């Protein structure tokens, strides 16, 4: 969208952040001319004689994650792309709303730079489109279009936004909330296929037809094409090289019950190449693949790893001379264009105990680390004050350098004169320089009191506890055991299997019963898994690596209790069918649930597929009883409808739905169901269908094509009731692990840490996390196994040294700290018959509430001691206390 120079960095935060030469744009590489860059590069880093090398590596497993490809321009052309500058793809639109985008984050038309007054999104561009051979649903476009629409609305609340769609497929966890938010912001959703996109002066005219048969025209200032995810361009090449098969859409072919295994042994697939998917699902698959490889190669674990070695730490005692080195960073021009760096370094050099003060262009660069190490040696520095950017981002990097130089990492202090000074006082260079000098003085004052702190490690009990013996729990338990660690598998019921036992077949025609049989046999064979049936978690205490749980087995009268020590916990407690009270379920005999229909269809009953069936979707989910989408019901309805048609082709099956959410490749079966004569009729939330009882029990619904109420008397009324979690409330209290408003466990980060909980050492998978189908459950269970195995592999857990330390001499045992601590990280001991408090370092988060409340000043905080903070305050008042 903008001009890119042949030599560039893709984006400001690219890793590695080095410039590269685009071979398609470089004059030398294309025409053997120019080469101006070679002499101008001061560090002589450009060498055109480098050639591509081929290297051979022997590896035990390969994981392919090539991502997805772009929808071709030919498809986009049908939507006016390339014919009007303001028809853009959603990826381009994403760049436009970004601060580093072509208009610095301002929303402007390419045509004449005006702000668009109205905006249209066209969904399913290159997805659900047989015309371009992409019959599948890309699964992510509805959600990102809503996100982009919301962002656009935040840029300009006056901008009118319309989203043209077939079905809104926001089936992900809590995604429906975003749709509701968008509607409340005034974003319009129109169910219509856009037939034509035409240039209309500066504007673009869209022609579309709605369900009721009316055709409409509307001009827009800008049109965003919500492009789907295509298979990667080099899919065939990769498949040929690695020797695995692709599916009909050139994505990687995998089995439903082994979703990441390609058809070639030892080669696994993750991410969008396995099938279109969003970020959390890609991240989940990544961890799952790591788990599979870890099981496959467990005998080789640790063999190839290079462990970093550090020099022996130089002892720094209380009596040693304090020798401070101050490094003032230019950060390119980020700091030096405002702050007078030279005078800051000069003033720093005048401070007591400072034996060395210097400037540096980029303190965080690789070569600057080497310089830092040399200076530490040369000047025998034992305190470092880095005057640069934020410790939140850069402290670990410099601390690593200190360790490399043999200094304890707690002897490091950072002063932020970029984020907190040069960037925010850009117009006041003198005041910014004065502030920098003050901040350095305060930092130096603190650093005089910096002491080496011990990095504590606690050993880990190399055993896992898995709660729940359904598909998720069984898969996790097996996966952890296959990686070589003992597992205690706790199941509340009398048998293993959970909901898997109720599912008769999958949409793709696989047999869950077979899967259950295999898993049960594997668990029996796997000696590392101990199964506890009829059992529940009674209590749990401890922290990551060192949990102790009490498991109660059997009925209340003959209850047996066992105590188990373990390092990690996986929650796979599952969910169950939601029994709605609506639509006369339970009172009218012919009203049943999809699960009941499934059991009936799998049986041999004579009238199991009657002549007329009405299915009502979202009978429990999406605002009926439950606030969320249950994700599996649409697939289940399509599956059962197809089964009815298979048994009784004459049967009339009507599916009343709000949005059919057969995302991914399941779209094929939705198409098949329509072709086989299943009738799909959409309804609006405000105009729900009703089950009415009179002489007979009938369904009444509004037909949007006929535009009138229709009454029908089917033989069977089938409800898609949705899924609710089981027992998460009790467990959440036991473990102090948060749940969502819908009582599913809340992951630590919805995008990047999808199977970890906020409590360290506790992981979640399966329906306890949110509704999901079998294949996604398997992947998530494998991912949880990978994450849970990590502390077990490490064998020890590191504890940050910034924790509270209690002086037993001064402690009077009052217990105020115990009652104030939000993390249960202080316990009371009896020493010589006197009560004394003691910190549990692994639980302490370093907040310091105990220290500021202790009446006898017996508690101090590592890295933030009374002395350190007081010295900073005194330095604020210009008092210098040299030590």
């Amino acid at each position, binding site marked *: 969208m903008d001009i890119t120079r042949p030599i560039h960095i893709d984006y400001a935060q690219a890793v590695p952040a080095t410039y590269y030469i685009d071979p398609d744009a470089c004059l030398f590489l294309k025409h053997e001319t120019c080469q101006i860059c070679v002499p101008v590069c001061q560090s002589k880093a450009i060498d055109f004689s480098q050639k591509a090398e081929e290297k051979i590596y022997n590896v035990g497993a390969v994981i392919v994650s090539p991502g997805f490809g772009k929808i071709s321009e030919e498809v986009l052309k049908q939507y006016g792309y390339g014919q009007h500058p303001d028809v853009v793809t959603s990826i381009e639109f994403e760049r436009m709303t970004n601060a580093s985008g072509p208009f610095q984050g301002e929303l402007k038309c390419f045509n004449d730079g005006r702000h668009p007054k109205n905006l249209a999104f066209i969904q399913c561009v290159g997805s659900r489109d047989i015309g371009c051979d992409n019959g599948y649903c890309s699964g992510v476009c509805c959600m990102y279009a809503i996100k982009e629409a919301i962002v656009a609305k935040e840029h300009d609340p006056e901008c009118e936004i319309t989203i043209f769609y077939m079905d809104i497929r926001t089936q992900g966890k809590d995604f429906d909330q975003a749709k509701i938010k968008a509607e409340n912001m005034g974003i319009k959703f129109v169910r219509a296929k856009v037939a034509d996109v035409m240039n209309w002066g500066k504007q673009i005219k869209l022609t579309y037809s709605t369900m009721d048969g009316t055709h409409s025209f509307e001009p827009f200032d800008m049109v965003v094409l919500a492009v789907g995810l295509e298979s990667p361009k080099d899919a065939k090449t990769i498949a040929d090289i690695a020797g695995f098969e692709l599916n009909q859409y050139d994505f990687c072919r995998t089995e439903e019950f082994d979703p990441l295994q390609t058809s070639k042994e030892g080669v696994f697939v993750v991410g969008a190449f396995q099938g279109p998917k969003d970020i959390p699902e890609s991240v989940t698959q990544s961890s799952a693949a790591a788990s599979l490889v870890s099981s496959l190669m467990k005998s080789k674990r640790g063999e190839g790893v290079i462990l970093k070695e550090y020099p022996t730490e130089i002892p720094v005692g209380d009596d040693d001379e304090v020798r401070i080195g101050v490094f003032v960073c230019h950060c390119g021009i980020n700091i030096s264009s405002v702050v007078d760096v030279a005078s800051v370094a000069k003033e720093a050099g005048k401070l007591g105990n400072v034996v060395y003060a210097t400037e540096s262009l980029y303190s965080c660069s690789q070569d600057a680390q080497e310089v830092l190490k040399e200076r530490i040696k040369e000047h025998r520095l034992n305190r470092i004050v880095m005057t640069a950017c*934020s*410790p*939140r*981002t850069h402290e670990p990097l410099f601390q690593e350098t200190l360790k490399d130089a043999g200094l304890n990492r707690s002897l490091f202090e950072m002063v*932020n004169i*970029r*984020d*907190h*000074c040069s*960037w*925010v*006082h*850009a*117009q*006041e260079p003198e*005041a*910014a320089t*004065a*502030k920098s000098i*003050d*901040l350095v003085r*305060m930092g130096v004052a603190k650093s005089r009191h910096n002491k080496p702190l011990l990095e504590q490690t606690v050993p880990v009990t190399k055993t896992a506890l898995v709660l729940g013996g359904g598909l998720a729990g069984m898969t996790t338990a097996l996966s952890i055991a296959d990686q070589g660690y003992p597992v205690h598998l706790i199941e509340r019921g009398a048998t293993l299997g959970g909901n898997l036992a109720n599912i008769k077949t999958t949409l793709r025609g696989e047999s869950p019963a077979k899967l259950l049989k295999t898993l049960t046999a594997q668990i029996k064979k796997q000696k590392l898994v101990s199964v506890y049936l009829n059992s529940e978690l009674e209590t749990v205490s401890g922290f990551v690596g060192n949990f102790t749980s009490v498991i109660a087995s059997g009925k209340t009268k003959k209850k047996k209790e066992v105590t188990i020590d373990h390092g990690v916990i996986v929650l796979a407690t599952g969910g169950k069918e939601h029994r709605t009270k609506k639509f006369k379920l339970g009172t009218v005999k012919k009203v049943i649930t999809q699960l009941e229909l499934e059991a009936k269809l799998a049986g041999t009953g004579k009238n199991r597929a009657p002549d007329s069936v009405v299915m009502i979707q979202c009978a429990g989910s999406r605002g009926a009883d439950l606030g969320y989408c249950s994700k599996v019901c649409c697939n289940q309805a399509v599956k059962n409808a197809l089964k009815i048609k298979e048994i009784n082709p004459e049967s009339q099956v009507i599916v009343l739905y709000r949005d059919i959410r057969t995302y991914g490749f399941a779209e094929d079966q939705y198409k098949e169901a329509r072709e086989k004569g299943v009738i799909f009729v959409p309804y609006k939330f405000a105009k729900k269908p009703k089950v009415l009882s009179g002489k007979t029990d009938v369904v009444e619904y509004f037909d949007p094509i006929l535009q009138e109420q229709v009454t029908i008397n089917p033989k069977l009324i089938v409800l898609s009731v949705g899924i609710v979690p089981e027992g998460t409330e009790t467990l959440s209290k036991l473990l102090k692990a948060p749940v969502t408003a819908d009582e599913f466990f809340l992951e630590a980060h919805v995008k990047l840490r999808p199977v970890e909980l906020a409590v360290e050492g506790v992981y979640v998978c399966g329906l306890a996390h949110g509704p999901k189908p079998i294949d996604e459950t398997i992947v998530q269970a494998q991912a949880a196994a990978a994450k849970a195995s990590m502390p077990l592999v490490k064998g020890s857990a590191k504890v940050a040294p*910034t924790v509270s330390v209690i002086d037993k001499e001064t402690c009077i045992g009052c217990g105020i700290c115990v009652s104030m601590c939000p993390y249960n990280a202080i316990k009371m001991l009896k020493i010589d018959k006197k009560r004394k408090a003691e910190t549990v370092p692994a639980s302490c*988060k*370093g*907040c*310091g*509430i105990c*220290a*500021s409340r202790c009446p006898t000043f017996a508690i101090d*905080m590592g*890295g*933030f001691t*009374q002395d350190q*903070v*007081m010295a*900073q*305050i*005194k330095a*604020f*008042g*210009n*008092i210098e206390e040299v030590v």
Partner: protein
Amino acid sequence: MSEANPKILGFLCNWCCYAAADAAGVSRYQYPPNIRTIRVMCTGRIDPAFILRGFSEGAAGIFAGG
């Protein structure tokens, strides 16, 4: 310092207010340059003695952000 330019001492929680101050920098929000800050891991760390000492060192105001 003159009355028009009072010296302010700030205590910033590492997890929220310090992070917010970083974000203000990244977004280039401009604010007056008369605050000097001390990072703490939580505002719970702020001992009343810190505040009293701050005033006695000439702070016109103390800011606790958490």
